[in-house]
């Protein structure tokens, strides 16, 4: 910021930054260090602690329930990225053609589930998936002639499909908003030039649209991976008695963390689960950034 005027002393940034610095030292840095130390301790309540070295990690990494949670979370993330995002992008592309007011209208409607918190969504859908009476059961029955008596939430094989379906309802609009904003910024003249050069619709999408929306697409993919790996509220309230489904079929990593840290009061174990989760998320994010080849600045 070069100034041509005679200027007073350079303004002190601390006038504006003190809240962030204070809050992040007390409620981020300090707890983070603590989270690191806690992972090597066993706690029975906030006061009683005992150093146990790597035992938390070795327990978690040999616990079949953890692997079940990991598998469920990975499956959920897979469908988030390879089912939800393509649908979101498709809808955004369908919407992007129209130049009328209808764009805002659709965006509003498809986005509306986001207003319902995941907790309320969990409660709502727990009733909608009721055997014989649930609205989803009846809908599926009408469409396919099967499914009225299916008990989605107590069948271990149907827990994940139920979660994926609900997440589809909840997040398609959210991701679509991002894709739509990106598509609106794609240079129309580039597409026209490609069309004049004889490129087909698929080729234009592949070579013009896709590269143009890549930064946003990368952002959405990473955000939705991180979000998927942190799934908790939805399954917590969807399954009866908040037990994450029959045979842990709806248990996620964060659900596992919650049970360990707050139901079994072993905060140290919870912290260890948290670090493992952080590690997983970081690795996956790095791979995604590497694949997309976009290292974003801000």
């Amino acid at each position, binding site marked *: 910021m070069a100034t041509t*005027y005679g200027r007073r002393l350079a*303004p002190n940034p601390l*006038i*504006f*930054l003190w*809240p*962030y610095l204070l*809050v992040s030292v*007390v*409620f*981020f840095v300090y*707890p*983070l260090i603590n*989270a690191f130390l*806690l992972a090597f301790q066993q706690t029975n309540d*906030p006061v009683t602690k005992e150093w146990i070295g790597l035992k938390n990690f070795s327990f978690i990494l040999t616990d079949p329930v953890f692997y079940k949670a990991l598998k469920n979370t990975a499956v959920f993330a897979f469908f988030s990225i390879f089912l939800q995002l393509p649908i979101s992008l498709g*809808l955004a592309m*369908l919407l992007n053609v*129209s130049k*009328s*007011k*209808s764009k805002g*209208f*659709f965006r509003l*409607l*498809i986005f509306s*589930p*986001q*207003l319902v*918190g995941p*907790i*309320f969504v969990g*409660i*709502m*859908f*727990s009733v909608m998936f009721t055997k014989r009476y649930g*609205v989803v059961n*009846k*809908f599926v029955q*009408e469409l396919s002639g099967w499914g009225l008596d299916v008990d989605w939430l107590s069948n271990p094989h149907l827990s994940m499909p139920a979660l994926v379906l609900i997440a589809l*309802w909840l997040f398609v609009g959210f991701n679509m908003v*991002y894709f739509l*904003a*990106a598509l609106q*910024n794609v240079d129309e003249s580039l597409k026209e030039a490609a069309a004049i050069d004889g490129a087909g619709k698929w080729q234009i999408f592949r070579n013009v649209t896709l590269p143009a929306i890549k930064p*946003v697409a990368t952002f959405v993919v990473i955000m939705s991976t*991180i979000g998927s790996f942190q799934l908790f*509220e939805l399954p*917590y*309230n969807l399954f009866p008695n908040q037990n994450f489904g029959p045979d842990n079929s709806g248990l996620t990593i964060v659900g596992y963390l919650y049970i360990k840290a707050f139901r079994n009061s072993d*905060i140290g174990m919870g*912290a260890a689960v*948290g*670090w493992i*989760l*952080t590690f997983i*998320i*970081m690795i996956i*994010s790095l791979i995604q950034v590497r694949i997309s080849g976009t290292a974003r*600045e801000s």
Partner: protein
Amino acid sequence: MAISPLHITLILALLVFIVLKILAPANNSLPSTYLRWAILSGVCALVLTPFAWLICAAFKHPSVFNDYTFLPPLGKMLEGEVTLGNFGRLLTNPKQTISGEIYFVQYLFNSIFLACATTIVQLLFCSMGGYALAKLDFAGKKALMFFMLGTMMLPGMILLAPLYEMLVRIDLIDTYWGLIIPGSANAFGMFLFRQATIGIPNDLIEAGRMDGCSEFKIYWSLIMPLVRPMSGAFCLICFLGSWNNFLGPQIFIQSPEKLTVPVILSQYLDVYKQEYGVFLAGTLIAIIPPAILFFTLQKEFIAGLTSGAVKG
């Protein structure tokens, strides 16, 4: 014949389609346009069907809850099978707790208070930080921003346990301060405001300085009015985040009289096991405040949500 889910979805799709036809410019009537509309209407209808179901379910008499998927036929409706009874029971039956009888209104009030307080504090702190990041030069700015980016990548869940311990230690557990302060100045909000502020011409700020405005006055009287759209978006994001926050109150709040709507509705699952209508009525009530805010601020919301990602 009772109304089935498929009927509702088709009716909704038709309604959406009609609205589209009305909104569309007159010359726009190619077959491909209609096909596009049809697909989008279908998707919208699928999205809206659960809402239609929720509204119907909240007004149905408990004794006929499972008899009809949506609403009873008109004649039965007049016989009292559609009632406000669920809302009545929810609002007039107090919850017995160790702190005495607590009415649902108390929880609504708690949630609204907490969401508003959170929003005000976050708006102030994040816009201040964002302004400093966008318009002030200082040593270590790059490092600070890099650090902030790192904090955004860490899953918040990892801090939950140590944060709990911390709040116990500084005696903020079981208080609203314990929910408000830890997230009050966050990297996400500061980056949003940085994006919004960075485009404001430096000359304007210099002019303010020449006129002898204090730095805080420049931020408050010059910058804040200019970033009003982002402020609107950010308020909605904060309000939604706090309103729907479940884990925070669930873990950090212990006194029953301080709990919030999401936590209490989740507990109602046990209390009203066979009476879904009551807690669906609660769910419906819980959607209203964010919905009102969303419809008021939706333009700003979409702009704010996407500006970080698109402008990058």
